[in-house]
């Protein structure tokens, strides 16, 4: 690993972000990354956060048209309420703040505590959960579906609406709508090495893969012998479509987990398109890249989001963050 010591990994990265991105205010000590021009008058503030190790999520999505602030926790560990309250205070212009929370026990508990504390401080805060991973059944026997790739869609689309000056209820509503319209499925071709552990979190021999993985190095639901990119696309897209039955065009995120070369990811994207066209699903837009990662995991995930006209307009709206930029 390219680190100094495990204990300073997050602080070191934040120092690096501060050095590279003058357009961000990076509070290294308190671990909050805020767009420099926050609070923007009249604009709802968007705050997200979660364990580190998923970069560019979330700090790479802070900027005009997307998040107002991000709170990075330790690697794979939810941030603490103090960070979230501080971020909320920094971005609140009086129009209120939306917390975008990936559905993990840790994130939910910490953000819930932050909501209480922020409200105690007089802030108006709403919270939306992202839970798009179809590999986990959403039942009382689990912590519910994990939040994965759809987070990018939620942050981008809600961020665009907030930039238009929409009120908190509408920003919250569109965030919820994006989440409800999105599903993901992930596959690992190799395990993760976390700074804390220093060796792979599970043992995955070269000739095997894990289906239905999350973004925290947890093993998946099933281990199988290695397959072709086309076979993996079949499994992933079918798993998503079993749950999301789109009757209109979709956004497609072909996401790398961190160590899968872009060359392979684009090839996988071609297979995802093939399966979608076989299934008669129209594609509105496709994004290919390492966006919601799991440190150095080799693998990929597919996220589909069925979009209406408003969502597509908001997706296409200008965005200026370090990891996602277009328009204007």
């Amino acid at each position, binding site marked *: 690993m390219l680190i100094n010591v*495990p204990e300073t990994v997050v602080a070191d990265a934040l120092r690096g972000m501060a050095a590279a991105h003058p357009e961000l205010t990076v509070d290294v000590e308190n671990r909050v990354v805020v767009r420099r021009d926050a609070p923007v008058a009249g604009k709802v503030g968007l705050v997200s956060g979660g*364990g580190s190790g998923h970069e560019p999520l979330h700090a790479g999505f802070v900027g005009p048209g997307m998040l107002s602030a991000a709170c990075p*926790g*330790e*690697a*794979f*560990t*939810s*941030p*603490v*309420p*103090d960070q979230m309250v501080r971020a909320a205070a920094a971005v609140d212009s009086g129009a209120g703040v939306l917390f975008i929370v990936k559905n*993990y*026990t*840790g994130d939910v*508990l*910490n953000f*819930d*505590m932050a909501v209480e504390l922020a409200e105690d401080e007089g802030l108006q805060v709403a919270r939306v959960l992202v839970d798009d991973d179809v*590999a*986990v*059944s959403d039942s*009382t*026997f*689990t*912590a519910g579906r*994990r939040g994965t790739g759809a987070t990018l869609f939620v942050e981008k689309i809600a961020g665009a609406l907030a930039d238009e000056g929409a009120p908190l209820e509408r920003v919250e509503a569109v965030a919820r709508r994006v989440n409800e319209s999105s599903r993901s499925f992930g596959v690992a071709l190799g395990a*993760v090495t*976390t700074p*804390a*552990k220093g060796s792979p*979190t*599970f043992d995955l021999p070269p000739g095997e893969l894990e289906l239905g993985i*999350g973004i*925290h*190095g*947890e*093993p998946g*639901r099933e281990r199988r012998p290695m397959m072709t990119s086309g076979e993996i696309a079949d499994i992933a897209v079918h798993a998503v479509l079993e749950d999301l039955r789109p009757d209109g065009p979709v956004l497609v995120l072909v996401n790398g987990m961190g160590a899968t070369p872009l060359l392979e990811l684009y090839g996988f994207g071609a297979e995802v398109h093939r399966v979608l066209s076989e299934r008669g699903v129209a594609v509105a837009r496709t994004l290919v890249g390492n966006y919601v990662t799991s440190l150095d995991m080799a693998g990929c995930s597919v996220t589909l989001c069925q979009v209406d006209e408003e969502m597509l307009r908001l997706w296409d709206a200008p965005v200026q963050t370090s990891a996602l930029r277009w328009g204007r």
Partner: protein
Amino acid sequence: MLDTDFFRRWMAATAAAVDREASRLTELDAAIGDADHGSNMQRGFTAVTAALERESPATPGAVLTLAGRQLISTVGGASGPLYGTLLRRTGKALGDEPEVTDGRFADALEAGVEAVAQLGGAKAGDKTMLDALLPAVGALRSSAGAARDAALAGALATVPLQARKGRASYLGERSIGHQDPGATSAALLVAALVEAAGTSGGGDA
């Protein structure tokens, strides 16, 4: 009677145990979670130790509420709010007396454990820290040693369980056959009570 110093010794003994066992806790978490439980607990109890030294709280209740607040502010993850709530609620239930009886402490811990159950929504058998904490609370009525044994037994008994809460639940049946990291750290916390009681309160004290 348990005085303020007893609770400071409890936190100190827990911090030492967590330091000692950190990599094992992380290993357990790697198998069915995300490989951070050891470092999470270590970060939290390092902060607890520092805060107790800095602020010298004067009552048993103040020791635990301060410790709980530290955990909430420094751990993150699932364990931060849960352990933080456990200690804060236990501390609050102790009130601000300078000394408390064993029975009063057992009641307070029970309130703390109930708060954990409420916050996390888990029940006995869900393969979480509660599987060590719940039996410990019962046994603490007889002695700290009994609580320690019950917590350890509870932690070991998580091995054949299928997880229904937290990250491990994502694995479904693949979570079976592994010991829950949070139940394991909870057993360390309870065992530290015996150490805190020292030679005087040791053994079955």
